[in-house]
């Protein structure tokens, strides 16, 4: 009898091997492993895990089906709530959501809900099972701006409620941050993202790429000229932030967005693609979030020695513990309690190093985390040829500045109610465009809530 307190281990690529390739790190459960892990679920009467899930997947119900080997039924249960289970099973911070609430986790290890979700979604894809749309078309047209997690979720839910949905994407591929931001080794593009987008298409959603809302066409024009009666804005995070320190415009300083976009969306790492990327020898990544981990692990795979420079200590790293753990295993070096004060530039205008100052933690700040304070005179130089700034983003003003009556807050984020209603009638919004940069699953939750609110809007209108 297996120990019910511990998880069925999952196989991963060896750190030494995966540090040199872009294949997926985690290999997923086999059928036997999934059934064994599912049998650890206590099937609680009042399941806490469901409350921890932003899209409220009926977790115990799908896990019971996995336990019985009814994988197709398990997929149907997940699909009722989520349009992107293969994505979520890979990138959700389960440890602080569903798994964080699992009763098993009190005395032992929480049930591996995320890994089971991933197994079910992968099994369905490999067996050609698609989500079903049994609704009757109601003839109402809804436009969705952006094909990232919030847009795909809203589009899927609206299609399932009978709406005629078109998704507009500014880039040349569907998926938003799932294709330009999150690297291949965490989220395979062809196998997983494209397949999930196809599933949303199978629900009847139409997609149009290369359309920049606010430039190619405005929201007002979509509503007045193209017959869209409601709009959901899921346009994402926006412009990368920089530190405003000397040397930051030098060649070799990139935003994490640029570095990751070149590699992920434009596939600079792949033979045969035209897009260039700086394959640094020694790379400094500034920041400690999930995006910083993605940039660091990408630079490592492109052949560099990589240092993550973060101004607080390990306990405050905003990245998921699993990402930090994977990065360390692969050989990323963490230079904690340090902060760049200047980028050092050579005669050709390229980066030759980074001057950093050591920090210590003072009193807690507004975020509740202890505020980092500079230690006077502690500056030293790190030699490097590439610096990647991963400091977050500020909202892109393109849509708010071109839409009549759409208001933003002081930070430039779209103002929306908890249900996603903006200050403009029939226009809803959710995801990073409203909250600022957050997670895939929070954006999906916002897309789901807004889809329900849009449905409600039409019902009240009729």
């Amino acid at each position: 009898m297996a120990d019910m307190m511990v998880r069925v281990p999952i196989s991963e690529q060896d750190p030494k091997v995966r540090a040199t390739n872009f294949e997926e790190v985690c290999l997923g459960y086999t059928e036997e492993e999934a059934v064994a892990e599912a049998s650890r679920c206590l099937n609680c009467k009042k399941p806490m895990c469901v409350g921890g899930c932003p899209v409220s997947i009926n977790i115990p119900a799908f896990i019971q089906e996995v336990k019985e080997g009814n994988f197709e039924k398990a997929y149907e249960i997940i699909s009722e709530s989520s349009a992107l289970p293969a994505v979520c099973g890979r990138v959700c911070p389960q440890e602080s959501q569903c798994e964080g609430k699992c009763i098993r986790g009190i005395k032992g290890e929480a049930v591996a809900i995320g890994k089971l979700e991933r197994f079910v979604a992968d099994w369905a894809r490999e067996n050609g099972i698609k989500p079903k749309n049994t609704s009757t078309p109601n003839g109402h047209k809804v436009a969705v701006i952006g094909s990232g997690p919030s847009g795909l979720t809203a589009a899927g839910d609206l299609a399932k409620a009978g709406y005629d949905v078109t998704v507009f994407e500014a880039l040349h591929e569907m998926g938003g941050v799932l294709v330009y931001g999150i690297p291949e080794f965490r989220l395979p593009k062809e196998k997983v993202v494209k397949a999930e987008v196809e599933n949303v298409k199978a629900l009847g959603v139409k997609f149009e790429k290369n359309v920049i809302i606010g430039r190619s066409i405005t929201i007002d024009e979509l509503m007045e000229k193209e017959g869209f009666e409601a709009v959901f804005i899921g346009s994402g995070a926006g412009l990368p932030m920089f530190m405003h320190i000397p040397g930051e415009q030098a060649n070799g300083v990139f935003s994490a967005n640029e570095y990751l976009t070149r590699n992920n969306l434009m596939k600079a790492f792949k033979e045969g693609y035209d897009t260039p990327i700086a394959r640094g020898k020694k790379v400094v990544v500034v920041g400690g979030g999930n995006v910083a981990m993605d940039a660091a692990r990408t630079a490592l795979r492109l052949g560099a020695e990589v240092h993550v420079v973060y101004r607080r200590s390990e306990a405050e790293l905003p990245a998921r513990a699993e990402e930090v753990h994977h990065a360390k295993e692969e050989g990323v070096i963490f230079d904690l309690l340090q902060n760049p004060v200047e980028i050092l530039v050579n005669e050709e205008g390229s980066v030759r190093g980074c001057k950093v100052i050591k920090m210590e933690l003072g009193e807690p700040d507004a975020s509740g985390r202890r505020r980092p304070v500079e230690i006077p005179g502690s500056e030293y130089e790190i030699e490097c040829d590439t610096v990647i700034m991963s400091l977050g983003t500020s909202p892109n003003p393109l849509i708010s500045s071109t839409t009549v009556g759409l208001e933003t807050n002081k930070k430039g984020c779209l103002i929306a109610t908890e249900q996603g209603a903006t200050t403009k009638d029939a226009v809803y919004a959710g995801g990073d465009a409203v909250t600022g940069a957050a997670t895939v699953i929070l954006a999906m939750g916002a897309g789901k809530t807004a889809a329900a609110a849009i449905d409600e809007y039409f019902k009240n209108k009729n």
Partner: protein
Amino acid sequence: MYPILKKEKLSDKIFLMVVKAPRVADGCLPGQFIIVKIDEEGERIPLTICDYDRAEGTITIVFQTVGASTERMAELNAGDAFADFVGPLGQPSELCIEADLEETKKKNIVFIAGGVGTAPVYPQVKWLKEHGVKTTVIIGARSKDILFYEDEMRAVADELYLATDDGSYGFHGNGCQQLQALVDEGKKFDHCVAIGPMIMMKFVCLLTKELGIPTVVSMNPIMVDGTGMCGACRLVVGDEVKFACVDGPEFDGHLVDFDQAMARAKQYKTEEGRALLKQQEGDTHHGGCGNCGGDK
């Protein structure tokens, strides 16, 4: 897909294409740009809009071959199609805003186009002509054989001056020298638009600063997405960092840090040169081209 309806070779390395892209043609204004991607493996290439026809749903682009992707682009012909063609991107030219037309009409405007810069100058001059604004245009080029759009520009500009560095056609000298000559003749300008290679825009700005003529330039830095996401196109303008794709492409030329912009433009030169060489050499390419000068 976005079909190419027409292709024309304007000079040895400069090509014109008319592309069907109704959504872009419907919303674009002079000064804006597009991003084109040849196929799955291609780069996203930003190019200014040279002309547009809303009724036909077409955009005219002009490009010079400078790297692997533009070389590949030059091989395409009418009947082929681009995988992606997105736009319009960036802010329209501040001269081509209908609401400000009365102010614009009071100005004595001179355009200085250098090389391929003729392409983005043309739609602005055309728009101004259509709205009753008089303009003077100087087109500068290294020599006669790389001048293009002379007839088209003559049809829309009130005065057109041509200048060649080698004296093979028109004024013997560059655009800056032609401007100086016009000013020396007593012509008065109170607004200048300079579009062309960064080095040319830098020198025009040095001159116009001396002459006291406010000058707008159109910047074409390295870009990836062109929508304000990656920050690759950042420039120092005055004391601020600006993104050419969302804040520009036009900026006050007297505030742009050209030296920094030129250094940033070289960022991928070796990579691009290598990619080009690899493409030309095909199977015979064996790397080791770091110092071979294959790049532009």
